[in-house]
């Protein structure tokens, strides 16, 4: 078992209230039982555990500060966390932060620069797009403060390292080109667009049915904007999909058939599954065993059968997926999107039609450019009557 990511919940609370949030607003209430902030004792245990994992595992891994909102730690506690982690993790082990950007200050940016922590900011697009769902606790706009936080990063002497990009949840009713252009205007070196959380029992916003392809159409329009741009930033989702169609590799779960290893550490030190599973049902991210960085070695946890079963969840089991022409690119999508009460994760993604629509358009574009697609994909795609390429 090789782990590529340990995602640490340094704060279990958030300073804003995105209406679509999988942590607070999709039925899971595990956050209520967690300390608001990670304690010094847990940070110490975490640093020891990560240092031990770094010695046990040849492959470097990334440690991601996450929440809630990680910057609710405040500057002093943040520096303590980063100093503790860096004392045990060499520069080959990336430290990253995913933040809503509202609390980003020059002091915070300086601290992150000191410990080589790159920062990705969650923002959905221009004000009207962002403020539809990403709101303050009183329903107020968050847009202006987030953009101010991004400007702090852009002005920093180490901006090229610190500002890794933006993370954006797709609103399929928005204009993808306008959103793309907006992020370019913010100097985002990388844009990571995400499908909205949802599943077969609780359809994602904007999807009329599991068979509709609103997100696939939105992403296809984004593809045209991206491929027509003479100075494009990185768009991770499209990059992965195009590279997979060309026979290359993706770099994150949710596309392709590479296995990724991710573990979550809660603010009390509890080790959990990928927390995006919270959107499936209350407690879906919990292991039967109670493991903690305070009492267990990470390598030992990752070697257990229970962890292996969780790890295997990323591989789709549905016969629809195993016979699909596009499996090598789609990979069955994220497990959370496969959930359905009754059949659980044994389903294709609720975004199956969207993935097919986008992959078809990627293939068409690659062929138009004179490129040959991955022969495994080409052979299966042209022999499958279910998919029109």
């Amino acid at each position, binding site marked *: 078992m090789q782990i590529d990511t340990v995602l640490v919940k340094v704060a279990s609370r958030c300073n804003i209230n995105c209406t679509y949030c999988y942590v607070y607003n999709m039925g899971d209430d595990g956050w209520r039982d967690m300390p608001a902030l990670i304690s010094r004792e847990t940070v110490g245990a975490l640093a020891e555990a990560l240092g031990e994992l770094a010695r046990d595992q040849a492959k470097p891994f990334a440690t991601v500060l996450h929440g809630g909102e990680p910057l609710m730690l405040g500057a002093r506690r943040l520096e303590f966390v980063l100093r503790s982690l860096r004392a045990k993790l060499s520069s080959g082990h990336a430290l*990253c932060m995913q933040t809503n950007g509202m609390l980003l200050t020059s002091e915070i940016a300086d601290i992150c620069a000191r410990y080589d922590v790159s920062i990705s900011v969650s923002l959905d697009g221009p004000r009207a797009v962002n403020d539809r769902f990403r709101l303050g606790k009183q329903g107020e706009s968050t847009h202006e403060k987030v953009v101010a936080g991004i400007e702090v990063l852009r002005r920093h002497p180490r901006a090229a390292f610190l500002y890794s990009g933006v993370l954006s949840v797709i609103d399929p009713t928005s204009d993808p080109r306008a959103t793309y252009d907006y992020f370019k205007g913010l100097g985002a070196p990388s844009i990571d667009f*995400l499908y909205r959380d949802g599943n077969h029992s609780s359809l994602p916003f904007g999807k009329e049915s599991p068979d509709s392809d609103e997100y696939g159409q939105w992403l296809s329009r984004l593809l045209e904007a991206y491929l027509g741009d003479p100075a494009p930033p990185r768009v991770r989702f499209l990059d992965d999909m195009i*590279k997979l169609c060309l026979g290359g590799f993706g770099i994150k779960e949710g596309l392709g058939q590479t296995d990724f290893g991710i573990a979550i550490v809660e603010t009390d030190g509890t080790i959990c599954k990928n927390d995006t599973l919270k959107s499936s049902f209350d407690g879906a991210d919990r292991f039967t065993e109670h493991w903690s960085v305070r009492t267990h070695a990470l390598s030992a946890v990752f070697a257990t059968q229970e962890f292996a079963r969780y790890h295997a969840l990323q591989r789709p089991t549905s016969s629809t997926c195993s016979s699909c022409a596009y499996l090598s690119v789609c990979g069955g999508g994220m497990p959370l999107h496969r959930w359905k009460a009754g059949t659980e994760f044994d389903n294709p993604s609720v975004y199956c039609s969207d993935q097919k629509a986008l992959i078809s358009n990627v293939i068409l574009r*690659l062929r138009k450019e004179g490129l040959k697609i991955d022969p495994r994909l080409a052979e299966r795609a042209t022999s499958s009557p279910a998919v029109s390429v």
Partner: protein
Amino acid sequence: MSEESSETAGEPESYQSSMDIELATLSSVALARLVEEVRNEEPATAGAYDRVHNRHNR
């Protein structure tokens, strides 16, 4: 036969030809970048954390 093609001799000819394409003929800057990356990709890097993009939980 070049060194590169001998290393990929097991792959169908049509697939190799896609990697041999002249990047300047592609109409898209992003596409040229990605083709170049696939050319230089090593299977050993599959699943490795990529620092080009920030890591998170999906």
